[in-house]
């Protein structure tokens, strides 16, 4: 399966699955950025609240609630649970394109 076809909006990622943020769009972009939800960050969809309420993400040790409207505008790529494997795939700034001083 090609990588592009495995891109899923965050709102459709199953509970408990880890994924890497591929792109963030829409008016909530800046808010998401402040919470560390940026391209390249590794998140886990921890829970969904009832009645189409917010999605709860785990990002490191933080838990972030994101309304389902916002979650639909965040695209994700699958990630292997092993973080080092993700680093090797070379997507996004978390995977070492930032140089050392």
């Amino acid at each position, binding site marked *: 399966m090609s990588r592009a076809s495995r891109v899923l909006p965050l709102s459709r990622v199953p509970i408990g699955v880890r994924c890497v943020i591929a792109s963030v769009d829409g008016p*909530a972009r800046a808010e998401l950025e402040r919470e560390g939800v940026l391209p390249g960050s590794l998140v886990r969809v921890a829970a969904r*609240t009832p009645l189409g309420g917010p999605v*709860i993400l785990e990002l*490191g040790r*933080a838990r972030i609630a*994101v309304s389902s409207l916002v979650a639909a505008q965040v695209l994700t790529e699958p990630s292997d649970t092993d973080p080092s494997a993700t680093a090797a795939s070379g997507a996004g*700034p978390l995977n070492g394109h930032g140089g050392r001083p």
Partner: protein
Amino acid sequence: MSANACHPAPEAPGGLRLDARPVVAMVGRPNVGKSTFLARASRKFVETANAPGTTVGIERRLVTVGGREAWLVDLPGARSLDDEPAGDDPFWTLLLQAAPDAILVVADAGNLARHLPIAIACRDLGLPVVLAANLTDEAARRGITVDAGRLGQLFNAPAHATCGRTGEGVDVALGDAVRLAVVRRAVKAGGASPRATMSAPIYPYDVEQRLSVAGAALTVQPRSLGAAALVDPLAAAVLDGRVSPRGGASLRMASSLEPVRWAVAARWAEQAERRTEVAEPLADRLARLATTPFPGIPVFIGISLAAFMAVILVGGFLASLLTVAWGATVSPFLTATIPVLIPFPVLANAALWALDGGMLGMLSVGIPYILTFYLLLAILEDSGYLTSAAVLMDRVFGVLGLPGRAAIPLLAAAGCNVPAIYGTRVLRTRRERVLAAFLVTLTPCSARSAVVIAALAPFAGIPAAIAAFAVVGGATVVAGLGANKLIPGRQPSLVLELSPLRAPVFAHVVRKAWYRFRGFVVAATPIMLLGSLILGIVYEAGAWQTVASVIGPSFETLLGLPAIAGVALVFAFLRKELALQLLLVFAAVQVGHAAALGELMSPQQLFVYAVVSSISIPCLATLAALRGELGTRAAVGISVGSLALALGVGMVLARLLGTV
């Protein structure tokens, strides 16, 4: 105590206090324990002044460390330098207004990767930075310790492991910040080399290059464009040395730098953290459960009901206690002395309305309901539960254009509207606050509920009372939907970090509640006194009959109610209980005996009256709170809105029930 405490230095134009003493600004993400840190820091060191900033509500304290005096400025929690914690202005404008000589960044030791980006952003400003890896106690429970030495190396700045609760490392961190601030003052005065405050490049080559180009542009701009420098706050800040050119450029490029900062932060955190495997702490497990449908929702309902009952029961008990005490002590004294002091009976009685009735009204609302609610709210806020409740209720309140956290003030409103208005401070934007305040004023408080029950249950039956509440509730929801459409703007979608659960710090809770309570007393007292005095004069001078003749006819034609019912409604503006008490008095005057209300008005008329009095204009204390919190325009707008809604609903009911 230094002599300076009594003589505040003059305000700098467009900024905070500037004097010979250096300024240390405290920066950190929300919920990182900055307030506890500050309390610890200022208890440790001699606190000689504590003046809230006039322009931006920033708190600053004079601290003395090792014989050096410095201003410690506490800034609101921010997640990045271009965050908007107060609603409109980006955080960096607050920071530059404070004109800090050094920045003390408070970070969560248990989650450095998340807290270092703003620290890196501060470091980019070209100001001396000290890093406090705070909350080490919570981090330790999660099996994380911070290698402060390694962190300092990476950061090229002093770093300390601190714990605000125990005081660990707090004085050392603050001491370092003050020391660096003093040095920077010397640099600005020309006494030291400016190299001392330059930060080493940490970003990839291309990013650093863009930063230096943008920085150079900021320094050139004033000379070539002249007046433009006055318009551009960044260029002005660079010009007067509050930030370095690179710092100014980093603020301009903030959004493109942010991903790079998070990447650097992740790397540094990896190197500075030492982890051991431990079982998940109980607080974290509870926090996880708090947002689940079960037991999250039952727990939310339980906590809400408990808070609601506490306000009603504790508040009601204290209020009656206070009323009895007042009636036994102050009231007889006033009744005896004021007629002696003021020889004109009408004026004397009017003064009694203000000093006796008005003051009692204020106290019996203020102390019992408001203090009780503030204490509860502060506990809920400090425990971190409020964010869980907000997430659970987000979908439900989203329909009304409100975020989930609006649930708390709206529930409190059923006890008393006034604390609920102040409770809207938990909301982030002004739009949310205005919308929530409007719904709060429509929610029947315990006094209004009492009027509805006492006017309807004996004369029209209990089902009528229940139906009246249903009509009021329905009107509130419809009005909320309408207001959401009418008020410009849109409810921003939820993006919210869930706070970890922690035990609230008692002193902190009390201080917060007291601070807010003082705000209510200052805002409401003059309005309550003046309002009662005016109503007292109108009543005592017999002018209420004029009021009846003015508003009576329209009341009769529109709502089918007797003119004196309109007068009672006008006076209920002072205290909602008067809507029934005065009506009974007027009925007795007109019909001749006390239980005359049923003869004066039909059950249908009473129903219309109960609904209209419940929805119409908030009481004086609520209006004072609205004005103090949201400004005169919003207060007037909300009052007009609720009056229009009351009349509209009343007219429809009058036609349906055949009273006109």
